[in-house]
């Protein structure tokens, strides 16, 4: 409405100028008594014209004011809608975040379920195994152990030499070992005194077990001279002279 006020002031000024002029001319014409009606009427007409224009402009200003007011109302409505949309956006984002977390955790749970299912072993088997490894003092020291006791948490030199590997290298050092190890195994004539202590000779449990197949990717040399087995059998022979037991 400031615009209307401004216009009003302007036209008041114009009108006042015109009115002053009119009054001056009227005053002059009274003094002079000359027919200057033309000028007066001209000025009057001009005044009327100006007034008409002014009225029109006032109407226009009022209309514009109304439109402006409507625009403001609409702007407020738009702002409100914007806020609503932003609110919805926030809520959606939150929901998405929560869902994503839930999905992620569910996936993790599924993974661990799968893992647990894969590694499922009967408790009986575990107990049996635990009993086996504890009874032989393999993982827990015997209660009477003192420094100086030759028993160890790993296979000792003696045990290693008495095992299959050692015996394959030393065929002549032991009465039983006049045969091929395969024979000794088949005949079941492993030294009794060693059998209970050296657990890898319990053939009953391992007879059905086979190692995984492997290609010759250890970079083995051609058949007849198996380097890898040379290592196996040679190692024990630090003090023996039977180094010719490797394949030929």
């Amino acid at each position, binding site marked *: 409405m400031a615009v209307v006020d401004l216009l009003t002031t302007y036209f008041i000024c114009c009108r006042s100028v015109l009115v002053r002029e009119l009054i001056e001319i009227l005053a002059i014409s009274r003094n002079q008594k000359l027919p200057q009606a033309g000028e007066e009427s001209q000025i009057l007409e001009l005044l009327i014209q100006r007034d008409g224009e002014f009225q029109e402009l006032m109407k226009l200003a009022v209309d514009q004011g109304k439109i402006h007011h409507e625009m403001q109302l609409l702007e407020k409505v738009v702002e409100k809608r914007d806020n609503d949309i932003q609110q919805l956006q926030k809520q959606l984002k939150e929901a998405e975040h929560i869902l994503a977390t839930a999905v992620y955790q569910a996936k993790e749970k599924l993974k661990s379920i799968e893992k647990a299912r894969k*590694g499922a*072993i009967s408790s009986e*088997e575990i107990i049996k*195994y635990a009993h*086996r*490894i504890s009874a*032989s003092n*393999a*993982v*827990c*020291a*015997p*209660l009477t*152990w003192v420094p100086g006791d030759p028993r*160890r*948490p*790993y*296979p*000792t*030199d003696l045990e*290693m030499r008495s*095992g*299959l*590997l050692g015996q*394959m290298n030393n065929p002549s050092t032991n009465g039983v070992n006049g045969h*091929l*190890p*395969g024979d000794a*195994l088949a005949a079941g004539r492993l030294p009794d005194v060693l059998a209970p202590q050296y*657990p*890898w*000779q319990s*053939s009953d*449990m*391992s*007879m059905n*077990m*086979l*190692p*995984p197949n*492997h290609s010759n*990717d*250890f*970079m*083995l040399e051609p*058949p*007849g001279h*198996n*380097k*890898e*087995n040379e*290592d*196996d059998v040679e*190692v024990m022979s630090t003090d023996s002279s039977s180094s010719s*037991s490797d*394949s*030929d």
Partner: protein
Amino acid sequence: MSLYLLWRDDTGNRLRFQLELEFVQCLANPNYLNFLAQRGYFKDKAFVNYLKYLLYWKEPEYAKYLKYPQCLHMLELLQYEHFRKELVNAQCAKFIDEQQILHWQHYSRKRMRLQQALAEQQQQNNASVK
């Protein structure tokens, strides 16, 4: 004897199983590892590949045959070149040996402590009754 021929038949496979079972458990012996290191076996690529192949003993269906399951830990460590290099030192092997024995005695020490605590408690009870 040609061990290579053993690879081809079933008896051979069974024997190979036994041999590998023995060998992998020997790896639990740090002195043996030191022995192997000093003789340069760990520098042989074929041997290193063999150690990698032996990792199948970690599967439960194979691991249940191990009397010394701690050998699996040594096997895992042996996959690293740094460890293989370190094993050339006798002090390294000695340190591992000592730690293994100490760990081995863990449960018996714990049991002894429990028994001592129990004995002390009983003494206290007897003393208070009197």
